[in-house]
Every structure is written in C-alpha cells, then in structure tokens.
C-alpha cells in the first residue's frame, strides 16, 4: 500500500461518509456566476435554518446551466438528492424545510434528482436527463458542481491523481505518445496537436524546461476556463503535473486573469493542499519527479493570451508579442524551451491517461478528437456552460441543449471564437462544430465562446463592437494592427452612422486583408475575422447601412428614430416622466409624441412603455435628408 493508496482510501472514506451521513447536506453552486445570481444570501438564509434543523452546507462549483442559478442540491439520508434552480433567498429556507421535514420534494421547483445508494425512488427525473445536460458528454467537467473545489479529498475520492500516479510509473515518451494517439488538440483556440507540442519541446537539448497553464481567457463572452478552475481546480493542476513530467520540466507557471479573483483563490487553496499531500515540490508521491508551480496574475491585457505576450508578461515586461520562429518550444520563458497549454487542454489530460487514448479518440470527428466545452450565451433560452463531443451540430447545441432562442425571436447567427472568431449564419445550423469546419466557414474555434444572436442584433454593429475591442486591446507594436484596426473601426463607425459610401466596401475588404496578412501576432491576424465573415454572410445588411442608410435590426442609433404610434398609445405618461432629456410631450390620456431633435435614443421609453406603443422607424422614412 503506497502512501498514495492510503491517501485515496482516506479520501474515499470521508467522501462516502459525507454521502451516507445522517445529517442532511446542502450543496450550493457558489462559483462566480452563482454569486452574481445571488447564491450568498441563499446560503445565509439556509444557515439560519441550522438553529432549528441539523444540516451541513457545502459550496460546490457550477454544474453548467447558468440560467438556473442560484442552484442548490438537498441531500437527505435514504432519499435521492434533489436539485432546485432559481432559488431566491426568501424561499430557500422553505424549500429545504419542505423536503427535509415534510418530505415534500416540490417537483415543480425541482430541476432534477440524483439517486443515492439504496435510497428510495422518486418521480423527479434524473438531473442528467435535464434537457440542457442530456446531450452533453462531461469528461473535463465531470466533477464540476458535484465536488467541493476547495477540498482535495473530494477530488482524490473521484479518481483524483490516479492519472498522475500511473504516469509516474511510465516513461515520459510513452506519456507523450498516449496524448498524441488520443488526438487531443489545443483547446485555447489554435488547435495545435498537444502531443506534437510536447514532443518538440521535449526534444530540445536544454534541460531547464517550463510548462505554462494559459488561464488568461480574455475573450469577451467566454467563461469555460473560469468555471472549470472554480469547479475542479485539481483537474487542471494534475494535467499541469503530467505535462511537466512528460517533458521533464523543472517548473510550471499558471498565468491567470486578474479579472477572475475567485479562480485565483481556488488555485491558491489547491496548491496549498497539494503541497500538504506531497503532490508538489520534491519527490512527488515518492518518485524522483520534483516539480514546482508558481501562480502569476495577469493585469488586464487581452493580448497576453497570445503565447509570446504571455511569456513577456510572466517575465515582468510589457505584454508585447515577439515574432515566431523561434517558437516557445525552443525559446520560451527565460529563453528556455516552454510548453504553453490552455486550462481545458490540461484539464482533459488526466481523463485521457486514466481511460487510455483509444477511449478518448472514440469521441469527436476524424480530425477533431474528443469533447470541447462551450459557453452558450446571448439570446438563448438556456444559457450556460456545456461540454459536447466535437462534431456535434449547431442545431443540437442551440435547440436541444440551448432550448432555442430567447423569447422565440428569429435565430439569426452565432458568433463563435470571440473577437478573433466569426459570425456564422443560422443557415449553417447543421454544420458540425469542429476545428476544420469552423475555419472553412471563416471563423475559428477559439476558446469556444458561442454568442447567439437574433434578428434584434445588427451584425454591422457587432463587427464594430469586436473591432472596438481588438483596437482597444492591441498591444500597439506593429503598424497593421495599431493603425489598421483604428482605421477599420473608423470605417465601420462611418457606416454605422450612415456616412458610408460605395467604395468603402472595397476599402473594408482590402484593409481587412492588409491587417490579417501584415500583423505580427494572432490578435492582429484574426482581428478582421468578424468583419470578413459578416461581409461574406450578411452583405445585404452592409448594403442596407451604406446605400439605403437603414439598420434592419434597429440598433444603429443614427439610422432610426423613436416614434409614438398614436393608436396604441394610452397616454400613461411613463415615457414623458422617464425621458432624461424631456423629448416627450403630450397630455394625460392623450397620445404622446417624441421630439426627434432632442431625443438621445437612450431606449428608456421603448423598454418601459406598457402598451408597446413606441416604434423604431428608419430615419430615411421620416426625414428626407438632402444629400
């Protein structure tokens, strides 16, 4: 019995004790998204119950469906554990009491159940049959939402560090071969085969090698890495250790975004526990493999997601990318060979080692193996974090898992891969989601952020939004990116204001080509993607903005005006009172009117009108602007 097995036995005993204990346990989803949805007041409310009712509260990560947050799960001895969603602070105590005392699981509020060993049956469907979770294949998110991220024993009890223990008996080369055979590719965005990357770096002569976990995740609209770190940090750290062993690195770095304070706390706690359990530092688990991990916080720079900029940032410099070659595998941090892997890539490694590469290679398509986590946000009914095998069609993701479009509006397109990605129209709903296909469509997999947009979103404005983001986050080193993105933004701003001219089309395309061909790093090379894809798939909207001076989605403020529809207006005066600039006039109970010269289009009247009497009308129809 090596000391590792004793560790695991002890962990399993405490895990089983927790699940079989008499006193009921409340699992609360307390990742950042849970807290934003108000889980902390819910926990406070349940704590007050402790005075009357013996119970224990365990904070767990997010199980995925953010739209149901805050989520709690109530575990009662001899009964299935019931999950409840959208729990507000006031009704929290009542729900828990009903189930524990009155034994009434309130099926209407429940979102799913988890049968406990030799527990009684229940009519509530299993949580895993919940529409959002059914079609998923949770490998890297296996523990998220179920285990306490701050308790290493929970991880150990669920096959934690088995892979590391197994790897320590294997030769590093075989570990690399195993990862190569699994077909695992970088989940950060480029999709470079992980096995190859490790092989190149291991081949370097210099003995001092490093591994870096890229947790910068700057893409707006993407939070997969955060959820994974806050839900199951040890999975990532175990992957980092295995990578370190495979290329015989001396040290590992974690570069985590400063905007994720909770994730940083989870990492700190996990590292402390690993040291205590002998899983870090000298002779890990008694082997001759020693490894140190240092956590470095980013400081607010999207460009630091790019490899060489990240390396510069770790070295305490300005995060300005460097030309490749030489690639980081030959000349990385401190000039030494370095492997840089994304959080999700490292998180998947333990599962591959445990179950073997053939098992993992069964998932996904011929070239894009395995599963990928996506953050499903925007105008979707069921938004949240999902993990599906690569090659799943967009239709399954949007409709089966995502539950279709919010308020049943018309599904227009998805924006995938963040500011370096592209906008894929709804017509490609049956396209499989994998690296090759997305590149073919002009987008990139990127970190996997899918933002669903409906007919109320203007793609030209969306492209402008992304350009504004990349222009703001450009490091400013090379000309095409520093000046090109600014000029591209100027062009789009002109178009959005209705001042575009015909030759702007040609200039847009040429400038986009110049930036992507001329830029030094990934940020610049992919910055024009949003413009290029929207130009290819939604050219009619550009024509509408440039030629007809209309915004079909009524988003571009300079192209439409607010008008009150006299018939439906009930004269309730809400708009007149709420208007910040006094642009609305009219008597009580009489149809009101809006002075379009004063109106600053703050949208307050449109959103608050009970009778939905306010219309957005194209400016050209209202005012005959003489050219």
């Amino acid at each position, binding site marked *: 019995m090596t000391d590792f097995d004793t560790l695991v036995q002890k962990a399993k005993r405490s895990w089983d004790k927790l699940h079989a204990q008499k006193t009921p346990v409340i699992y609360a989803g307390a990742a*950042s*998204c849970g*807290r*934003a*949805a*108000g889980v902390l007041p819910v926990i406070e409310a349940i704590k007050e119950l402790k005075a009357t009712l013996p119970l224990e509260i365990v904070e767990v990560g997010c199980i995925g469906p*953010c*739209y149901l*947050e805050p989520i709690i799960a109530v575990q009662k001895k001899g009964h299935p554990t019931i999950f409840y969603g959208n729990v507000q602070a006031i009704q929290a105590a009542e729900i828990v009491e009903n189930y524990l005392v009155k034994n009434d699981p309130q099926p209407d509020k429940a979102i799913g159940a988890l049968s406990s060993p030799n527990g009684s049956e229940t009519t509530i469907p299993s949580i895993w049959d919940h529409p959002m979770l059914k079609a998923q294949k949770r490998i890297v998110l296996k523990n998220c939402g179920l285990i306490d991220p701050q308790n290493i024993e929970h991880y150990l009890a669920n096959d934690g560090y088995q892979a590391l223990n197994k790897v320590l008996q294997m030769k590093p080369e075989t570990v690399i071969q195993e990862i190569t055979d699994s077909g695992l590719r970088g989940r950060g965005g480029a999709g470079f085969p992980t096995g190859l990357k490790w092989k190149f770096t291991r081949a370097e002569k210099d003995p001092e090698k490093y591994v870096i976990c890229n947790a910068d995740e*700057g*893409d*707006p*609209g*993407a*939070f997969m890495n*955060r959820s994974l770190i806050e839900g199951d940090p040890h999975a990532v750290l175990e992957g980092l250790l295995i990578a370190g062993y495979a290329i015989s690195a001396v040290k590992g770095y974690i570069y985590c975004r*400063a*905007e*994720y*304070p909770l994730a940083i706390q989870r990492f700190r706690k996990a590292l402390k526990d690993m040291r205590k359990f002998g899983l870090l530092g000298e002779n890990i688990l008694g082997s001759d493999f020693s490894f140190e991990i240092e956590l*470095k*916080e*980013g*400081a*607010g*720079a*999207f460009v630091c997601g790019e490899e060489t900029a990240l390396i510069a*940032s770790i*070295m*305490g*410099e*300005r*995060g*300005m990318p460097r030309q490749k070659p030489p690639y980081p595998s030959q000349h990385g941090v401190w000039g030494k060979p370095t492997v840089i892997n994304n959080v999700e890539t490292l998180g998947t490694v333990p599962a591959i080692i445990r179950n073997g590469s053939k098992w993992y290679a069964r998932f996904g398509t011929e070239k894009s193996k395995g599963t990928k986590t996506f*953050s499903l*946000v*925007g*105008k979707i009914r069921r*938004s*949240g974090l999902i993990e599906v095998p690569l090659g799943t069609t967009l239709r399954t993701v949007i409709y089966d898992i995502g539950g279709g479009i919010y308020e049943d509006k018309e599904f227009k397109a998805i*924006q995938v891969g*963040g500011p370096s990605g592209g906008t894929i129209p709804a017509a490609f709903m049956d396209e499989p989601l994998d690296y090759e296909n997305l590149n073919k469509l002009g987008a990139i997999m990127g970190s996997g*952020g899918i*933002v669903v*947009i409906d007919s109320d*979103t203007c793609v030209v404005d*969306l492209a402008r*939004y*992304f350009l504004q*983001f990349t222009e703001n*986050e450009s*490091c400013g080193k090379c000309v095409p990116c520093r000046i090109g993105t600014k000029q591209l933004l100027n062009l789009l701003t002109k178009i959005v204001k209705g001042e575009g001219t015909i030759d702007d089309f040609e200039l847009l395309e040429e400038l986009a080509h110049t930036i992507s061909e001329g830029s030094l790093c990934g940020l610049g090379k992919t910055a024009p993607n949003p413009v290029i894809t929207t130009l290819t798939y939604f050219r009619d909207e550009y024509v509408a903005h440039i030629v007809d001076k209309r915004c079909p989605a009524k988003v571009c403020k300079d192209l439409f005006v607010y008008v009150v529809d006299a018939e439906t207006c009930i004269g309730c005066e809400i708009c007149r009172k*709420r208007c*910040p600039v006094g642009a609305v006039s009219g008597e009580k109970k009489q149809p009101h009117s809006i002075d379009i010269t004063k109106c600053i289009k*703050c*949208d*307050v009247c449109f*959103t*608050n009108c009970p009778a939905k009497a306010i219309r957005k009308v194209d400016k050209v129809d209202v005012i005959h602007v003489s050219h």
Partner: protein
Amino acid sequence: MTSDSLKIIHHDFKLSDNVIKKIHKILVKHENDPRNIIQILQDIQAEFHYLAEPVISFIAKELAISEHRIYGVATFYSQFKFVKPGKHQIRVCMGTACHVRGAQSLLDKICRELHIQPGETTKDGLFSIESVYCLGCCALAPVMVIDDNVFGNMSAAKVTKILRKYRRANAPRKTPAKGGGK
C-alpha cells in the same frame, strides 16, 4: 499645447515612513526581484489604490532598475490606475453577451447620473467608473460590479436605486432629530 500640461506628477502623495515600511514589506514578499514587477505593482495598487509617481521612483531605486521601465510596464496593463479612484469603483461589463443586451446604454445612463466619463472619478471622490471586458457571468448580462458585489440583469431604472443606496451609506451622519434626507 505647451508641454507643462503633460505633467501628472503627484506632489500631493507623501512618502511618509509607514508608506515606506509598507512598500518594503511588499518588496520583501517578492524577494526584491525585478522580474516580479507586475505582482509588486498589483500589491502596491491594492495598498494605495493607485500608482503615484513618488512610489514608482522609490521602487525603482530599491530594485535598481529604471523607473521608466516600470512606468512602461505599468501603463501597458489596464488594471493599474494613476489617478486616485473613487471610494466605490463601478465597473460595467462590455463583454459580447452584455453588449448584445444593451450594456452601452447602461454605461451611458451611469455616466449621465454621475456626470463623469469612463475612467474618471466623481468630484466628491465617491464613485469612479470604468468599462471592462467580460467578468465571466454572461448569463446575467448586462452586468455591473461595484467594488466586489456583482449586480446581474441590470437595467437603467435599477441604476438610480443602487447608486442612491451607496450615497446614503456614505452620507455624513445627520443628527436623527432633524429627520432623514429627502
């Protein structure tokens, strides 16, 4: 455009003894290693809320590196501030999901309410506002964060209510006899 308008030297920031003591504590924590300059600056900002010129030139002397390199690194990252921020820091998320759900009009509403532009601090020093990219709770777009508490599903109407709550919390204690404010 004479050049003296360029100077943003903080004469008002005094390098008192306990300030120096705090700085030394931070430097020692990072082994006086210039390679950890970013982590050092993060601790300095956590301690003094912004990076003042006297502090940066002091650190430069201690670590024997050029203060200009430190300034160059500090101005690269958006986390570092060079102006005294407000007591309460408001951050409006401009991530994709929030943008698509009207974050821009939310930001405009707050700026109208506080009469400042993003990156500035209100005259009474109570609030400073900035737009940030993706705080990672996209499902609750649009999102506003004040100091550490997060407000999801924000709307223009809620803004006034929340700001008033903060103002009241910071209003000077009026003697109760006179009756509460408006």
